[in-house]
């Protein structure tokens, strides 16, 4: 017997595929065990889910497969602690719990007709991937798409198959970079913010969406300001420790705003309205 709409009760799902993205990031494709629910499930690009390993706990990950491809839901997990550690030990065929979708999403309707600039670092490409694939599946709705993506070393770059794909496409401008020289690396070298300044994309009719480590974000925002991006043109995602994911348990607040429910997606203009507690 279960209550309809118990927001704490995860949906059981099975891992159908595991992809080793980098030495410490794995992607998990999961499918709800209840086929009917899988068929009915819908979400928006940027929304997150809580993955459960029963006995260990729950952690928050962005759904990084787009709503336009619903054969499975994909989550990418960087090994960071208890739950992510155990997730890394799971195999295809294992069961997990999923509570999704949670949170808000990228305002893709407002981006229609605009140039899109994605700037990502490391695992920060995960939420961007959802939106990138979503836009590629609705390619006509958007103007130029530029992706600047960097990681520490080439093996640390996520979604290598996608990167190959995007590189081959004429309608995407992909710029890859790594922090330092590396054998056989023939693309850019340098930190993401530096590459951003070198590429110097125009801010005109453009929306910039950025996600990555805090230090990268900090300098990317400075770089974007120099390129005359207005706060309303810059979108990022926030991260806070989470538990409930539905705005009740109290830990993810910044002032009166709850990252789990009012976020994780914010424009820089919105962020400037809330107290600085990151």
């Amino acid at each position, binding site marked *: 017997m279960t209550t309809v709409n118990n927001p704490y*009760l995860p949906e059981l799902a099975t891992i159908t595929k595991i992809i080793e993205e980098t030495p410490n990031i794995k992607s998990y494709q999961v499918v709800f065990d209840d086929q009917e629910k899988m068929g009915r499930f819908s979400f928006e690009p940027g929304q997150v889910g809580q993955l459960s390993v*029963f006995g260990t706990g729950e952690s928050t990950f962005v759904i990084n497969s787009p709503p336009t491809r619903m054969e499975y839901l994909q989550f990418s997990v960087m090994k960071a602690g208890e739950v992510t550690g155990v997730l890394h030990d799971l195999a295809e065929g294992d069961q997990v719990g999923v509570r999704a979708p949670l949170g808000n999403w990228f305002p893709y309707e407002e981006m229609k007709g605009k140039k899109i600039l994605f700037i990502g670092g490391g695992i920060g490409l995960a939420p961007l991937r959802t939106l990138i694939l979503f836009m590629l599946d609705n390619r006509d709705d958007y103007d130029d798409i530029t992706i600047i993506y960097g990681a520490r070393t080439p093996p640390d770059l996520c979604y290598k198959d996608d990167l190959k794909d995007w590189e081959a496409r004429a309608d995407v401008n992909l710029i890859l970079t790594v922090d330092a020289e590396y054998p056989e690396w023939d693309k850019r070298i340098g930190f993401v913010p530096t590459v951003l300044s070198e590429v110097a994309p125009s801010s005109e009719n453009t929306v910039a969406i950025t996600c990555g480590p805090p230090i990268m974000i900090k300098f990317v925002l400075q770089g974007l300001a120099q390129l005359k991006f207005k706060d309303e043109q810059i979108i990022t995602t926030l991260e806070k420790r989470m538990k409930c994911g539905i705005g*009740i348990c109290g830990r993810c607040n910044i002032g*009166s705003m709850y990252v789990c429910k009012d976020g994780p997606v914010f424009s820089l203009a919105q962020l400037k309205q809330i107290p600085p507690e990151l």
Partner: protein
Amino acid sequence: MAKLGYLPKEKLTALLEALSKEQRLFVPCQAGDAVLFQQYDATKTPCLDRPATTPPKGIIFPQDDTLFTFTYHKDAEDLKKVSVELKENLDVAPTIIFGARPCDAKGFLIYDRPYTETDTPDPYYKKRRDMTAIMTLACPAPSPGCFCTSVGGDPADKDGSDVLITQLESGYLFESITEKGETILQNSLFEEGSSYQEQAQRTHEAVAELVRKPFQVTEELTQKVLSLFENDSFWEEEANKCISCGACTYLCPTCYCFNITDEQAGSSGERIRTWDACMFYHFTLEASGHNPRALKHQRLKNRVGHKFSYYPQKYDGAIACCGCGRCVRYCPVSVDISEIVAHAQEYTNDHGE
């Protein structure tokens, strides 16, 4: 029309007996030197003379609760294949809370907004809340540290209660506030009460006079508290004596934060929900080691901020403190939230923030 019932003092035990037969009845009882809400039976010693040490929030929002249990089953044919089964845990019995204070009852109104007035209501809280009646005792005297009248309350406030009880010289006057309360007052132990109403009214007014009034809520208060957000030295000064424990939040009738953890033994286990609080270091600690509220003044700022600024911003100006004074009374070092609010008002007035 409110129903009025009078109960002579010597019939109190009989009433508690009668109520406890029909549903779970929680009454403040002497427990060691503390007073705690306990499920009533003949072995308990009810104590109505002072507010309970801990608020009744645990009756509707238990300090530890099982959200669901899980069991791993091995497939009989393919031993490597394991499937998991979940069982929701939502058994709730009808309950009466007897002898809460008006501030205790109001605490639940503050819970209600995030827990039930949302698009993702909390079924555990809601079910218990719906099945609980609250019989509140108007405070016969203020308690050390309390300040309900500063936050829009009153020692005889009816908000959030189903019945209001007033202690009179030789008995109690019971007044129903809701339908739930009216049903309770149908018990044959009650005598006609209307002739005692005036006496009760006088008591209420006399007690209200005795409550201290450390500050006054104004429309600008939420903005004033918020304007101090980046003023570290203000918060450091308020927090320097704080020892970062959980007394103030765990004893607070309005503090509603929680943790969720899994526990497993063998092939089965449970996901539990337990109280947690923003005064603890761990509350916001992230896996990377980063902690947005690593310092105690940042945490105190969140506690005061949540009650007097963030919550009211979110919910139509409602202050998330009912002035029960427990955090003041039981703080190991007497951090006084009402004093901090008063300081915030003074500071912003003096510095024109």
